[in-house]
């Protein structure tokens, strides 16, 4: 008996495994939950920061419910806490949120939602949902990843915002708990994966110099907007240099003829190509 079983198993063993049909749903859900839970919980830091900045409970919760893009929320309460006027504060938050338009562009091709669904899906178009969605191999996984990440993150982010805002009072001096470091740490954590090459490093460095120099001189909120000019400035200089020296000498173009810039998420570019081919 034992021998027979052994033979059978060896007969079966060499058969090639069937081609993986698609990423299993459980794997997509696991990825999505990992990101959704980790980032969702940091809504606590936002709630505390916002309450510490002097915003009311309703105002703090309104930001997480209605703005729902973390960096913009932190930027807004930071600017308001520093005494900035509402328009410069909102402008900084808005410019920071503008990157979501470009995530949306990529996602619309991958998700392929109908016009009726888009107004609802749009609210969840942020860094984290884009990262998870664009990493999926096909539309089914992409939609699942987007929905699970979006839902988990939205629910947790808003719950923890509420808890953080309520808890801020109980904590007393939030600075003593080091919670004022949460804002800059969030910004740094979002920034790190975006800085990949020389152009990005130079833009980041120039922005830091601009904000430090102008902080004592300009009204609150304005220095960050001035620092944003580092982006077009660096592109302008780079464009001139490219024209002057020829494309092959620029650091941004590793292969000849590929002048394609990379917008947020390199893998997104590849994925978009594959999905477009699939549909063709």
């Amino acid at each position: 008996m034992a021998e027979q079983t052994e033979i059978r198993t060896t007969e079966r063993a060499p058969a090639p495994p069937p081609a993986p049909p698609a990423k299993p749903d459980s794997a997509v859900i696991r990825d999505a939950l990992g990101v959704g839970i980790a980032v969702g919980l940091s809504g606590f830091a936002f709630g505390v920061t916002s309450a510490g900045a002097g915003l009311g409970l309703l105002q703090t919760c309104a930001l997480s419910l209605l703005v729902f893009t973390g960096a913009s929320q932190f930027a807004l309460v930071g600017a308001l806490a520093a005494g900035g006027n509402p328009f410069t504060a909102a402008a900084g938050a808005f410019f920071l949120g503008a990157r979501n338009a470009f995530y949306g562009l990529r996602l619309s091709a991958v998700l392929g939602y109908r016009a009726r669904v888009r107004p609802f899906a749009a609210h969840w178009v942020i860094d984290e949902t884009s990262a998870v969605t664009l990493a999926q191999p096909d539309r089914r996984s992409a939609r699942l990843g987007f929905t699970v990440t979006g839902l988990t993150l939205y629910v947790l982010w808003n719950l923890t915002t509420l808890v953080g805002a309520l808890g801020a009072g109980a904590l007393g001096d939030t600075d003593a708990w080091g919670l004022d470091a949460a804002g800059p740490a969030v910004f740094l954590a979002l920034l790190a994966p975006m800085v990949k090459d020389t152009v990005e490093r130079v833009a980041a460095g120039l922005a830091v110099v601009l904000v430090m120099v102008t902080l004592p001189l300009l009204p609150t909120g304005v220095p960050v907007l001035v620092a944003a000019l580092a982006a077009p400035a660096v592109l302008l200089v780079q464009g001139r240099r490219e024209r002057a020296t020829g494309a092959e000498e620029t650091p941004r173009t590793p292969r000849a003829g590929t002048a394609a810039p990379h917008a947020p998420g390199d893998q997104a570019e590849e994925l978009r190509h594959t999905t477009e081919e699939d549909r063709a």
Partner: protein
Amino acid sequence: MTVWIAIALTAVGCYLVKYLGLSAPAGVLERPLVKRLAALLPVALLAALTAQETFSDGPHLMLDAKAAGVAAAAVALVLRAPFLLVVGVAVAVTAGVRALGG
């Protein structure tokens, strides 16, 4: 009231850009220069915000325990720590340095 104005402006503006991206016909924002600027703008803004929130108190520049916390977060990022841990490290180190009288 000014706070509510800022919240309303930010909410409407941030929602509209998300919706615009998801609904714009492919190709509208696909010009290379627009894409490059879109990728680089958050880099500049986030770098500026990190520096401002770390080294300033209103219009005044300063160096305190927060700088140590953010430096620790940077180390955590280099070590590829997950998002929540990065934020946690920054908070814990800042609190620790303050408790020690930094």
